[in-house]
């Protein structure tokens, strides 16, 4: 006897027909949602820099996103393994389903060739059971993290709950269907299904009629769950496997701290981001890639000192505004109030600042870039914040009073410091007495951002006559 199984065992032709007919509905929902999102991103300004260096981008998408290089990190082992289990388990089960489809609908009816048997079948069973275990364990780890560990930056919205619930249900249904079939058919190679086989043994004491009825209902509900998840996909965080991958692929390759110039500033009609249409398409895609993990919050000095700016919430505020304007249902499922200080569906007519994002949030940012450094999908919080600040300053003339002296200095001296151009070199003489802390040119290049902070300190020391801290010289930047 060759190891295999009958595909669509105990499923009536009518059930198969109805499910095939219905598949158009969730697919149309999915296509509609994705098209709406793409339509929103296309409203953004062009950004050709994202379309260069495809080799680097492809490598980053593979290593950082698909193989989890940026998700599993040294101090994020639990969350990383959790995500890898969910992702890996889901992919294995998806491929398993595609293999069955190829056998049933392509190779056998068209080419008269069956590959779903023998050693391949046995290996398939081993791996697919592993996929189910990975998915269930990943979802349970996620539940434990949300409801037992409760990191302070992790909040749970309806969407987070539903996605986990659907994924767990899919895997449980899969095992149950398999166990019910094994209980009736009693395959000699049943033990290769190493999870559903032990489940099938207690079921064998029930009558075949009961088992077949339970099998049919579970098979149908498994398909319906797939359809519900597919229809919900584009309106939930389930979209993130696509948006995140796209975001990683198109991420900025310039140094993280580098600010984007406003091209042709003298003649530019739009300065900074004052409305969503001013954003680059990549930044509009950025906000849809956020999956609420909260890593940006964990490392944000502003959030951790209790200031109004929460980088994740700022991104979600922009995402909800975009969803409102695009007529996307995203988030309208409700229950989001707990997650952020905003509500989905507040109305597409709001002004970006202060209707969606408050000036306080924007000016709280220290632009340190910790959020970008730790975001698993390279969301660019700081460039977006700086662009919105540019809009406030250049278009509206609105900025905190504390910045006035800096602006005055820029206007009078061409630098943020009150030093005439003629004395700009004087600060270097101060450093000779402190040469022990002065880094080599090679190290200076590596220190990057910290270098300019240190120079600022020395510059202020030189001009004010008192010692200012020269941050960053004794340490490597984080």
């Amino acid at each position: 006897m060759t190891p295999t199984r009958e595909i669509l065992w105990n499923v009536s032709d009518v059930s198969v027909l109805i499910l095939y007919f219905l598949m158009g509905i969730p697919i149309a929902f999915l296509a509609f949602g994705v098209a709406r999102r793409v339509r929103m991103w296309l409203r953004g300004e062009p950004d050709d820099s994202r379309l260069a260096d495809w080799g680097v981008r492809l490598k980053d998408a593979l290593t950082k996103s698909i193989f989890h290089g940026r998700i599993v990190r040294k101090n994020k082992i639990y969350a990383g393994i959790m995500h890898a289990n969910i992702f890996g388990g889901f992919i294995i089960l998806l491929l398993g389903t595609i293999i069955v489809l190829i056998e049933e609908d392509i190779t056998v009816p068209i080419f008269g060739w069956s590959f779903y048997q023998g050693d391949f079948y046995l290996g398939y069973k081993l791996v697919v059971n592993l996929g189910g275990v990975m998915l269930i364990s990943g979802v349970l780890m996620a539940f434990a993290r949300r409801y037992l560990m409760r990191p302070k930056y992790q909040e749970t919205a309806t969407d987070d709950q539903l996605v986990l619930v659907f994924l767990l249900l899919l895997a449980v249904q899969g095992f149950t269907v398999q166990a019910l079939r094994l209980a009736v058919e009693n395959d000699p190679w049943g033990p290769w299904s190493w999870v559903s086989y032990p489940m099938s043994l207690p079921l064998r004491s029930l009558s075949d009629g009961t088992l077949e009825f339970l099998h049919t209902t579970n098979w149908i509900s498994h398909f319906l769950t797939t359809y519900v998840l597919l229809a919900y996909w584009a309106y939930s965080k389930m979209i993130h496997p696509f948006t995140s991958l796209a975001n990683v692929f198109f991420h900025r390759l310039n140094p993280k701290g580098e600010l984007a110039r406003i091209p042709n500033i003298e003649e530019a009609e739009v300065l900074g981001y004052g409305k969503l249409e001013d954003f680059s398409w990549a930044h509009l895609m950025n906000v849809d890639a956020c999956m609420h993990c909260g890593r940006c919050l964990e490392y944000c000095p502003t959030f951790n000192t209790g200031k109004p700016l929460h980088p994740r919430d700022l991104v979600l505020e922009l995402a909800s505004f975009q969803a409102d304007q695009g007529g996307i249902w995203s988030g309208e499922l409700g229950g989001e109030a707990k997650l952020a200080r905003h509500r989905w569906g507040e109305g597409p007519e709001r002004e970006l600042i202060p209707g969606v994002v408050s000036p306080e949030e924007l000016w709280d940012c220290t632009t340190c870039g910790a959020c970008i450094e730790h975001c698993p999908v390279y969301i660019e919080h700081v460039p977006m914040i700086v662009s919105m600040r540019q809009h406030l300053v250049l278009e509206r003339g609105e900025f905190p009073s504390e910045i006035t002296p800096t602006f005055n200095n820029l206007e009078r001296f061409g630098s943020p410091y009150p030093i005439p151009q003629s004395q700009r070199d004087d600060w270097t003489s101060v450093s000779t007495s402190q040469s022990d802390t002065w880094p080599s040119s090679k190290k200076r290049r590596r220190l990057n951002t910290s270098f300019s902070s240190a120079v600022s300190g020395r510059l202020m020391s030189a001009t004010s006559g008192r010692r200012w801290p020269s941050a960053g010289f004794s340490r490597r930047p984080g």
Partner: protein
Amino acid sequence: MMTTIRQNYQLISAIGLVVGVALITVAEMPSLHWTRVFGATAISLGAIGIGVYVGLTQPGRYAAAKARLAAARQPLGIVLVVLLFLPAMAGIVAGLIGLLNGPDGTGWVVALGGLILALMLAATGAAFAVGLSAMAGIGRAAREDAV
């Protein structure tokens, strides 16, 4: 040619759906089983075509349907959660009942089966509770929206 396709995009997508349904139906005849994959492809492409067309070109379309769906989201959600969970939970509970009826097989494998079933029931029960709690969250949000 392209202009014609663009102008009749919706019609072509609808034809795809109809052809798909027809192919899937005739695939029930054993000699024509090979048509099923083409039927499924035609239904998928037709559905993608309609979804993308409406999504890209008609932002305001179906606003009333959307509002009705949004208003009914809580009861719809509860019905879905119960309907989708019930068969899986019934299957697992049946296994646990079978455990009491003296099942077949080696002792430790049966014990392992019982343990897996118990864990699955616990996990599914927890997920069911979370699903219902999520639906309650939708209700709260809907009431707050109304206020």
